[in-house]
């Protein structure tokens, strides 16, 4: 997932990673060390990648001005239309599961030019036909300023791209070894495929080496436990 995310980063872009996002942080750092040395990188809770001095308000103001080219979001539920639910599973007043709340997600899905979704669990309880509550809509009314929106969605099984015209997640590539049957069994909505659906290029030995060395050392400054376990590989 981190290498797929790394390939989404373009050199020279301004890229931000929010809180609770160690996989995107790893991918963005990998890109910064390889093909995107001139990217401007912002990572919440990382002391080396936090250019703001006036609190997270300065970060949100920067995002509201459209300062970010690429951002990352996730959800307790994600549906086929790219809608995200960070509010609650079940009735919002008496939830089955109380989710953490949207924070800036209802703004950060609109303003950065491209938003890459990520979720480390690909299962029918996460990828649902229709989210219980829409914290952040994948697409919305035309009379609301929205320069950006969903671009791709990266999971442990596949990469979806967001088809903006039809407001649908469509499978762009399956990871090596994942069959359509596996994917469809683990997805709670009817899966649609690109005509040219591909196999996701696996991480190269160089990418894996960097993830386990320099990326791991840097990610540890924001996510020590993730660096010590997942990236220890």
């Amino acid at each position, binding site marked *: 997932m981190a290498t797929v995310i790394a390939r989404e980063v373009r050199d020279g872009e301004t890229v931000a990673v929010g809180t609770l996002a160690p996989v995107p942080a790893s991918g963005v750092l990998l890109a910064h060390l390889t093909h995107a040395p001139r990217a401007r990188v912002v990572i*919440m*809770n990382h*002391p080396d990648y*936090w250019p*703001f*001095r*006036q*609190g*997270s*308000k300065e970060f949100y103001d920067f995002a*509201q001005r459209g300062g970010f080219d690429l951002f990352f979001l996730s959800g307790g539920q994600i549906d086929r239309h790219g809608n995200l639910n960070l*509010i609650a599973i079940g009735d*919002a007043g008496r939830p089955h599961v109380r989710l953490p709340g*949207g924070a800036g997600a*209802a*703004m*950060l*899905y*609109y*303003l950065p030019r491209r938003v890459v979704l990520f979720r480390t669990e690909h299962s029918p309880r996460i990828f649902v036909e229709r989210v219980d*509550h*829409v*914290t*952040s*809509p994948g697409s*919305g*009314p035309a*009379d*609301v*300023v*929205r320069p950006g929106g969903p671009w791709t969605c990266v999971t442990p099984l596949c990469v979806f791209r967001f088809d903006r015209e039809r407001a649908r997640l469509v499978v762009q590539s399956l990871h090596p070894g994942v069959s359509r049957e596996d994917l469809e069994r683990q997805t709670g909505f009817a899966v649609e495929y690109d005509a040219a659906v591909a196999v996701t290029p696996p991480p190269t030995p160089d990418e894996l080496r960097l993830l386990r060395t320099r990326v791991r050392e840097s990610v540890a400054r924001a996510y020590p*436990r993730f660096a010590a376990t997942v990236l220890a590989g």
Partner: protein
Amino acid sequence: MPVPGHVGSDYERLRPDFTVIADPYAPDQRVMLVPAIRCDVALIHAVVASPDGTVLLDPMEDDALLAQASRVVIASAERLAPADEVRRAGPGVVLDGIHVTAVVELPGGAHPTLVRGVRDLDAAHFEEYVAAAGDDGTFARYLERWVSGPKDHAAYLARLG
């Protein structure tokens, strides 16, 4: 106050206090308004504070904004120092004493959360909290051990060991 985005989300359904209006500066666009949050009391924890209320705050958090939204602001701090030293002790957000009602020297007052650059978060304590919070009985024991049990902050720190 206006917020970008949001229109088209279920905040319109779940938050009747959020209003959508035609943008007065671009009438073909709609924009969401949310009421400003006004707090009676804010409790914030500073890296260092001076007795005149000048505080140095975490540059990644919004404690300065919270303080400015609150009628009464009580700032605890890892240590006390003269105001000119607080202003130079960065990195961080400096908030002047005009926003602060009272300052309390309270090292470890943010436990189990972190004080960036001074104290790490206590991951083991968070795990204990999460394990306890799943059940009313275990949570009551957690509260007794860490909240209602210790008679003051010194007793709390002593229990931490």
